[in-house]
């Protein structure tokens, strides 16, 4: 039986530099199984870079990531990579039909399961669009396809990089409703990067502020918004100008 006290993922001394410029520098960050951690912060704070590191899309300059207590080397094993996936701000759909986009991850795994794809299409209200070219969808529809394509894989860790940033409030609300439903039904752990503090407050269990590539503060949602421990968090919540860049 799994040790419930071990975080799903632990970040220790994680640094990412580009050309000598330090973009991410995280001393310590734990992700607990089943939680939704929202990471907020201004542009250039390193949020998206951190997500790419957590998804093993690029190697850290130094430091390590532990998965269920075990350090992960580079390159990470394929089996582990396939337990984590990201939905980006832009849906980044493939130049094919909606149905084939939704089933793409299964195809990569050699899984032929049309029934599972049908279910996902129905669940995300995409059945009528199944044969449509994915590149012709509206922003909200495309992002639903991206989310369906990720969730059909049953990831243990789902990373959401500002998934509603380009959507109107109605489409964003639909996507949030789907995220809530998924959380109610599955044990998927989620990390949500968002500029939208209201969204973080609506969805997250814990919220963290990133500034200049560093975690300023991570706290339970209510504590983060009502009793921030760090003056920079208080300033950010008040909408004061804070430079995010490292």
């Amino acid at each position, binding site marked *: 039986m799994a040790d419930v006290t071990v975080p799903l993922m632990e970040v220790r001394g994680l640094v990412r530099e580009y050309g000598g410029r330090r973009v991410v520098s995280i001393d310590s960050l734990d992700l607990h199984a089943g939680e939704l951690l929202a990471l907020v912060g201004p542009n250039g704070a390193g949020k998206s870079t951190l997500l790419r590191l957590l998804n093993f899309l690029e190697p850290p300059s130094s430091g390590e990531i532990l998965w269920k207590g075990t350090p992960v080397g580079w390159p990470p094993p394929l089996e582990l990579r396939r337990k984590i996936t*990201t939905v*980006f701000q832009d849906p980044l759909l*493939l130049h094919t039909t909606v149905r084939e986009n939704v089933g793409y991850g299964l195809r*990569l795994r050699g899984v032929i399961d049309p029934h599972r794809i049908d279910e996902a299409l129905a669940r995300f209200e995409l059945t009528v669009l199944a044969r449509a070219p994915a590149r012709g969808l509206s922003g909200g529809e495309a992002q639903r396809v991206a989310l369906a*394509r990720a969730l059909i894989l049953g990831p243990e860790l789902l990373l959401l990089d500002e998934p509603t940033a380009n959507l109107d409030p109605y489409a964003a609300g639909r996507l949030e409703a789907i995220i809530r439903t998924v959380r109610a039904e599955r044990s998927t752990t989620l990390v949500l990067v968002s500029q939208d503090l209201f969204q973080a407050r609506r969805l997250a269990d814990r919220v963290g502020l990133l500034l200049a590539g560093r975690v300023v503060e991570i706290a339970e949602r209510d504590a983060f918004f009502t009793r921030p421990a760090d003056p920079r968090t208080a300033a950010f919540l008040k909408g004061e100008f804070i430079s995010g860049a490292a």
Partner: protein
Amino acid sequence: MDWGPFGEIVSRTLAVSGAALGLSAVLGIPSGATLALARFPGRRLLVLAIYTGMGLPPVAVGLAVYLTLSRTGPLGTLGWLFTPTAMILAQTVIALPLVCGLTMAAIEAVDPRLRQQIRSLGARPRQEIEALLWESRPGVAAALIAGMGGILSEVGAAMLVGGNIDGRTRVLSTAIVLVTRQGQFALALALGGALIGLTGLVTAALLRLQRRPGTWPT
């Protein structure tokens, strides 16, 4: 030359240029993809060589292949000179940089974030390359069309290494030169029409791949 071997010349042209294009595709598409995606020492030099190769005069390629395959050349013992094999080799040398260089450019034009998305969905490196090739297929089809245009229309290399031998190495482009010199303009026009028709047919087939809206190849 009379109208008798017309069909034979058309089919030989198709066979020689088809084989050269096929070889260029087999070698050029994977190497173009590798050059687009991988970073290694000497890559820039290789890219420079390929771009230079895209502008090589066919007659210069023909000369190099001729010297290589001639009796005193390094591959003279193969006995390929004045055979369709020599023509295939020369045309492959002409088309390969075009296919490789334009494939590289097509893949480099794909949104780099899409590559991350594909990897994030659990793709193996090979699957990643396949997906990127699929995404850039309009550009890859254009690379093949350019390669085919380069070899179907060239006459210098085919003439030098093939020798325009009746019944053996005569193809549409070399036959056109011959019959024009002989003043057989009706036949020259017919051969020219066949060459244009052949180019059109192959291009139409490649455009089908380029414009296909939807589904994954099975």
